[in-house]
């Protein structure tokens, strides 16, 4: 990711995934080469999943000020970052809605997870298994509390092929997700319609994340680093289902029978 970029509302300094010392050095050099170019601009500093120290913020501030740039806000997904911003009298930006700058850095992080996925695929560990459940169901189903993530992206339209939603949080789509469309969420994914594209839940490693759909016919399903694709044609009538990771594999369970699973979470591989 480029260190220093222009945005509609000013500059963005991308420090996520970098060694801060090195990054500051680079930034200093870069600004020194064009000392008055950015004069008067404001900047947002993105830290991704890292939580910087107050001293780092002070240093960054000073560095930017030398080039006439005011540090306006911090962005990132680490806990404590918003508190830090407040303490430093700065605004706080969450990794926001789909296709935002921070979502793009998210995608770069996914590449790492997907490297694992590719490796698993090559080892032949990727097939969908339908959970075999005993016919006698337990009377009640469990409600599982989803961890409160910053926000849920709510998209009330069908996603066409080639469209993508990438979000730091949960994604809800009211409509279909057509083949060729892509959903990537750090949280869970819920499609109130037909999911036929690709969906990746728990994209930063949350193996407990689930994918729900009224009709689950995805081209490919991914949860954390697990991947699954169903090769056979499904002949049964569509019913609402959930996909979740269990014992290193993705399984699909009819929604009304979710409560019958012996544990409410997952067992990592």
């Amino acid at each position: 990711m480029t260190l220093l970029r222009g945005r509609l509302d000013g500059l963005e300094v991308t420090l996520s995934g970098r060694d801060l010392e090195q990054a500051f050095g680079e930034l200093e050099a870069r600004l020194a080469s064009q000392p008055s170019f950015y004069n008067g601009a404001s900047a947002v500093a993105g830290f991704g999943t890292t939580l910087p120290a107050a001293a780092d913020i002070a240093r960054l501030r000073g560095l930017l000020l030398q080039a006439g740039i005011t540090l306006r806000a911090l962005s990132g997904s680490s806990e404590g970052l918003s508190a830090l911003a407040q303490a430093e009298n700065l605004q706080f930006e969450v990794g926001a809605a789909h296709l935002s700058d921070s979502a793009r850095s998210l995608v770069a992080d996914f590449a790492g997870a997907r490297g694992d996925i590719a490796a698993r695929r090559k080892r032949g560990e990727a097939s969908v298994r339908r959970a075999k459940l005993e016919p006698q169901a337990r009377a009640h189903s469990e409600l599982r509390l989803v961890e409160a993530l910053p926000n849920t992206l709510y998209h009330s339209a069908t996603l066409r092929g080639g469209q993508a939603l990438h979000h730091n949080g949960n994604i809800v789509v009211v409509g279909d997700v057509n083949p060729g469309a892509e959903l990537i969420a750090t949280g869970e994914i819920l499609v109130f319609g037909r999911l036929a594209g690709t969906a990746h839940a728990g994209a930063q490693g949350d193996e407990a994340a689930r994918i729900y759909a009224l009709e689950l016919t995805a081209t490919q399903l991914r949860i954390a680093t697990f991947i699954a694709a169903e090769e056979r044609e499904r002949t049964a009538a569509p019913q609402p289902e959930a996909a979740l990771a269990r014992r290193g594999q993705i399984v699909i369970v009819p929604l009304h029978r979710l409560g019958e699973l012996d544990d409410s979470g997952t067992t990592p591989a």
Partner: protein
Amino acid sequence: MHQRQDSVIPGGAIEAAVTLSESSEASAAGVTLSESSAASEVEGPSTKSGRAIVITSGKGGVGKTTTTANLGTALACRGASVVLVDADIGLRNLDIVLGLENRVKYHLLDVLEGRVTVEEALVADKRTENLFLLAAAQSREKDEVETFKLSALISRLRERFDYVLIDSPAGIELGFKNAVAGADEAIVVCTPEVAAVRDVDRVVGLLGNRFRPRLVINRLRPQLVKKGKMLSVDDVNGILRLPLLGVIADEPEIIVTTNRGEPLALRTVTPTGAAYHAIAARVAGEDVPAPIPPAAKGSFFERLGSLLGGGR
């Protein structure tokens, strides 16, 4: 439909072309060009506003150009004034399908770059009254078209014609974007093939909220559908979920007439010709049930009939 006298339109001579036609019905059939251009000079901006419809698909070879030519012909046969714009710069084909390739003197870029007026560039169709072609350039590139200039041209054409049909190139690159820019309605053409459906879906997504595209399914072979060897209308529209404008069955006649430059819409007795006329009627706002071709009876077409007859 009357035969107009053969002529290449010299510069600024639209009025001349109209007076050449033999029947006085010419001026009665919709607004004539001479009237409308006079109106726009004398009375200021014309209150008449035609419809600008882009015909596109993403996938190549599904029948955009054939659909544009045939739909345009059918609309003109109903009395509307129609101009067909070929936006496939560098790979122009609309002129061939209409049999007008020898009559093209000037093309779209000549107009956009101000070398000739649009009247000078318009080619009147050989057979159908009130149907005109604005051909694409053959030896130029798509990135030489300035989008806003093309939109402006389409707007001007809308003031003079009931319908401006824009034949989009294949793909989703600049050529496609330019073709779409001037339009306010869209028709997407799809064949019953998985790859085509994927591409059309992509295009519908790219068209975005400005358009509510309507679907023409082309090259359907009912026998193959029955054998399970081809997607059905339901398979296609089950994914696309668009208002269905019409279904054209595949006929060997289509290639023949394309090679000869004779749009099938001229032959209303053929199933394809009839289908295009039905599509034209629906575009014009009529509620037309699907005609059932004599050759293909059976549950598929009856279902199709109810699909189309029940609304757009």
